[in-house]
């Protein structure tokens, strides 16, 4: 760094493994930590949502991992300013393709078959939709914020990984 002296001349307070300069920066860091706790804490409402998220812990459901996200994996199409978001989730042999746009949700469960689908937004279900015999489904767009789909097909319970639409 620069060759200017550091100005750490408030007496030789050397302790443990700290050199004087390190001791000084450690104090400054601690002061900054207190400032962050005062001026930029976790908002109380958010903390509460995280506490309540414990209800999302469900050992019976299999988690369908996100395997494709057009936001990351697709090449942007020129001229298309707000293309629908295409998502693919997979849990074992079950695949869920979802397209999210301002108009709503559209998708298909594979292997094809009827399924009961809960659209989750936070710990409570937001809406329930039904996939037809071909596994196809449509529904209203999920509300702003993270969402997940919980699918029941016969005995099988699958939840898609939480995602911000």
């Amino acid at each position: 760094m620069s060759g200017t002296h550091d100005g750490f001349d408030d007496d030789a307070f050397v302790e443990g493994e700290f050199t004087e300069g390190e001791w000084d920066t450690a104090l400054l860091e601690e002061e900054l930590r207190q400032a962050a706790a005062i001026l930029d804490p976790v908002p109380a409402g958010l903390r509460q949502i995280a506490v309540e998220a414990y209800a999302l812990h469900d050992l019976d459901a299999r988690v369908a991992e996100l395997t494709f996200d057009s936001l990351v994996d697709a090449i942007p199409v020129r001229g298309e300013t707000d293309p629908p978001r295409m998502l693919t989730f997979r849990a074992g042999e079950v695949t869920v393709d979802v397209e999210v746009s301002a108009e709503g949700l559209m998708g298909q469960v594979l292997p094809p078959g009827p399924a009961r689908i809960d659209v989750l937004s936070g710990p409570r279900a937001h809406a329930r939709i039904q996939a037809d015999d071909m596994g196809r489904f449509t529904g209203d767009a999920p509300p702003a914020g993270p969402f997940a789909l919980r699918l029941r097909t016969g005995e099988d319970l699958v939840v898609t990984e939480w995602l911000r639409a």
Partner: protein
Amino acid sequence: MDRGDVGELVLSAADGDAAAWKALVDGLGPLVWSVVRAHGLSDADAHEVYQTAWFRFAQHLGRIREPEKAGSWLASTARHECLKLLRAARRWTPTDDPQLLDRVSEDRTPEESVLDSEEAAAQTERVRRLWQEFEELGERCRQLLRVLIASPPPSYQEVSAALGIAVGSIGPTRQRCLRRLRARLEARGTT
């Protein structure tokens, strides 16, 4: 919460102990928040990423392979969601600078209200100046320090997961950034 308790708390929470979950939220929540703040998201996006990270953590609870590294898991999940959002913002609204939208929360915390009392005015002023100087540091320093000053302090592994930087680079950069902050404060006569 002690960092050494994280693994035990994750196992207890997975086992149905709601108090353990709450301890994790209080112990690791500030780290997750620091990650979204470090990436300079707008308030709305910051809130959504924070929630996404915790919802996903709840969903994977009991399946996490290294429970003692839950802090790194959360930090890295938050980081990836932040990067995704920033990429999407760049793609669709290239003139929109998310950094500009990022301002200190306007909600007043109880601590802040106490600080507003008159006898504490000088202290308040000092805290505000310190924060202002911190926010004017270069992006790299601001990012690193914002995560390092989460409370309780994160481990270097967690900081590495939060920012995608090598553990070995954290210590030296930290020293350099804090010295730079000190120099700025001295230049303004606020040490």
